[in-house]
């Protein structure tokens, strides 16, 4: 039991299973056969999955005249990259401001959600108060309520509370998407921490608060990182609330601003549009590159429960 738990804590992906310890039967397949049944389909799927990003990046650095002339220039490559579109983005639009808004809202909403989720998850898993199971189930149900059916009533609520067109409209509503997910994920993590540790601390006279901050949280750091990154990404990704609750240009987040402010009749808009999309995705992709394992464990962790 303890060994398994330790393995789970060290390896958040939960991939310490038996699958990797054995070669399986793959040695039975010859190379040509693997080429056709494995590498070829995998290559095609990866190509389709990644091509839009290549296309996005290429469009962002192509000069305008090459964008619309598919005959003279090879559209799949360019020899004269330009940063004109990025320049326009930074100095002629409010893009830096939108990027800052997005980051601020995502950070604030994520922090609020993680703090509330830590308390909730700890209470459900360890305090086991009366009805904790039912509350856990209800929180899972809250996960299943999509923002698309909430935004109309929420917009009236936001208006009543006087939050309309302020960042707080998003900071206070995003946790409804994030708390169910992160509570569920952290419950899984807290369950893997041996209860004996807590009993020892209780006997030594620690309060619940000390147990939480000195024992549980340090041990659950991988889980906290997973939850944090995943929530941050979800916030960055959110569109419908940001579209509905914000109206003035300077408060917008990147996804909404790109859709509303860049889309005009200009036939040469594609370059700056793609530059905007690329610049809006890069922070997340960089974050992801550093925490791939945490990311995967967050995604699979919430499903596995």
């Amino acid at each position: 039991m303890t060994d398994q738990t330790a393995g789970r804590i060290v390896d958040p992906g939960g991939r310490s299973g038996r699958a990797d310890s054995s070669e399986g039967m793959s040695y039975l397949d010859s190379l040509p056969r693997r080429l056709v049944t494995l590498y070829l389909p995998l290559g095609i799927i990866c190509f389709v999955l990644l091509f839009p990003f290549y296309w996005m990046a290429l469009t962002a650095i192509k000069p305008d005249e090459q964008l619309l002339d598919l005959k003279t220039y090879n559209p799949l490559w360019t020899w004269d990259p330009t940063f004109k579109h990025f320049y326009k983005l930074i100095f002629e639009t409010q893009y830096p401001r939108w990027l800052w808004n997005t980051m601020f809202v995502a950070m604030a909403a994520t922090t609020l959600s993680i703090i509330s989720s830590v308390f909730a998850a700890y209470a459900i898993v360890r305090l086991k108060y009366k009805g904790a199971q039912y509350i856990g189930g209800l929180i899972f149900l809250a996960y299943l309520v999509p923002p698309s059916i909430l935004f109309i009533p929420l917009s009236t609520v936001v208006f009543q509370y006087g939050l309309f067109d302020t960042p707080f409209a998003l900071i206070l509503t995003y946790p409804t998407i994030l708390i169910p997910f992160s509570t569920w994920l952290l419950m899984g993590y807290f369950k893997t921490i041996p209860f004996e540790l807590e009993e020892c601390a209780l006997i030594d006279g620690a309060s619940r608060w000390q147990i939480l901050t000195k024992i549980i949280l340090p041990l659950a750091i991988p889980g906290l990182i997973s939850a944090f990154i995943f929530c941050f990404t979800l916030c960055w990704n959110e569109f419908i609330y940001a579209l509905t609750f914000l109206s003035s240009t300077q408060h917008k987040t990147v996804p909404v601003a790109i859709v509303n402010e860049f889309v005009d009749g200009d036939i040469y808009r594609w370059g700056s549009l793609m530059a905007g999309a690329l610049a809006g995705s890069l922070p997340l992709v960089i974050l992801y590159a550093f925490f791939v394992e945490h990311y995967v464990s967050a995604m699979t962790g919430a499903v596995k429960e």
Partner: protein
Amino acid sequence: MADIAMRAGAKAPPREPTAWDRLKVNRNWLGFWFMVPAMAFLILFLAYPLVLGVWLSFTDARIGRTGNFVGLENYEWLAEDSNFWLVVFNTVFYTTVASVAKFAIGLYLALLLNERMPFKAMIRALVLIPFIVPTVLSAIAFWWIYDSNFSIVSWGLREMGLIEGNINFLGDVWNARWSVIFANVWRGIPFIAITLLAGLQTVSPSLYEAATIDGASSWQRFRYITYPLLTPIIAVVMTFSVLFTFTDFQLIWVLTRGGPVNATHLMATLSYQRAILGGNLGEGAAISTAMIPFLLAAIMISWFGLQRRTWQQG
């Protein structure tokens, strides 16, 4: 030394625990306070709006004006509105086709990624990128790929000599439907593939070895080992997938805004258009509320349909 300590302890008789002391270690009392922040958010901004939404659908509320109770009038309006039924058809079609395609390709990709190969971790990381990048931003890339004059897909097919003119991806009714479905499938595959892969990795290879020795073909190995063991994860993943496909908004809003002639309008985009752009909060809320039974049905089908197999075996 220990003797002294004990005597000192005996001198001061332990004081009776007060009600406050007992309350401080009471699980229910502590649990209540630990739950307060999360519950406050969920009740104020989730449960209350959910109820309010149902109430709004029975009123004639408009933006800036609280409505009066009008009973089922909004729903009667919708029932006679042929556009609404077209949108219901679109939504069901979109959800069914996209979910089935996502599941099939996602499972296939998961099976491929479960094989041993070099650079496996890197390939897995790359596959997940469409899921990381915000949907709106990748939808914009698709918008450019689907451009009616400068589409790279049309260009490629033309260069290969497969088509004569450009494909009008988003301008034609059925082309537009298939295009948005493709973009949705593209976006959804990584999530399904990676979560199913996590499930696949818990299946012991010795089961496959034993089956192979008993003469099972690769299809039989999949059908009688992989699939039954994966069912619980498939049920959860598909429930989520169906749910979020059914309520999709971002992709449609960026690519077509519901056009051409409402061919790609989904219930979520229609409710946004009527409630926020048109100002008819009551009618929009009625469309949102009308989604709830569909959603419950979809959840039931994915959940119980896939769970039944395990009940039968159990």
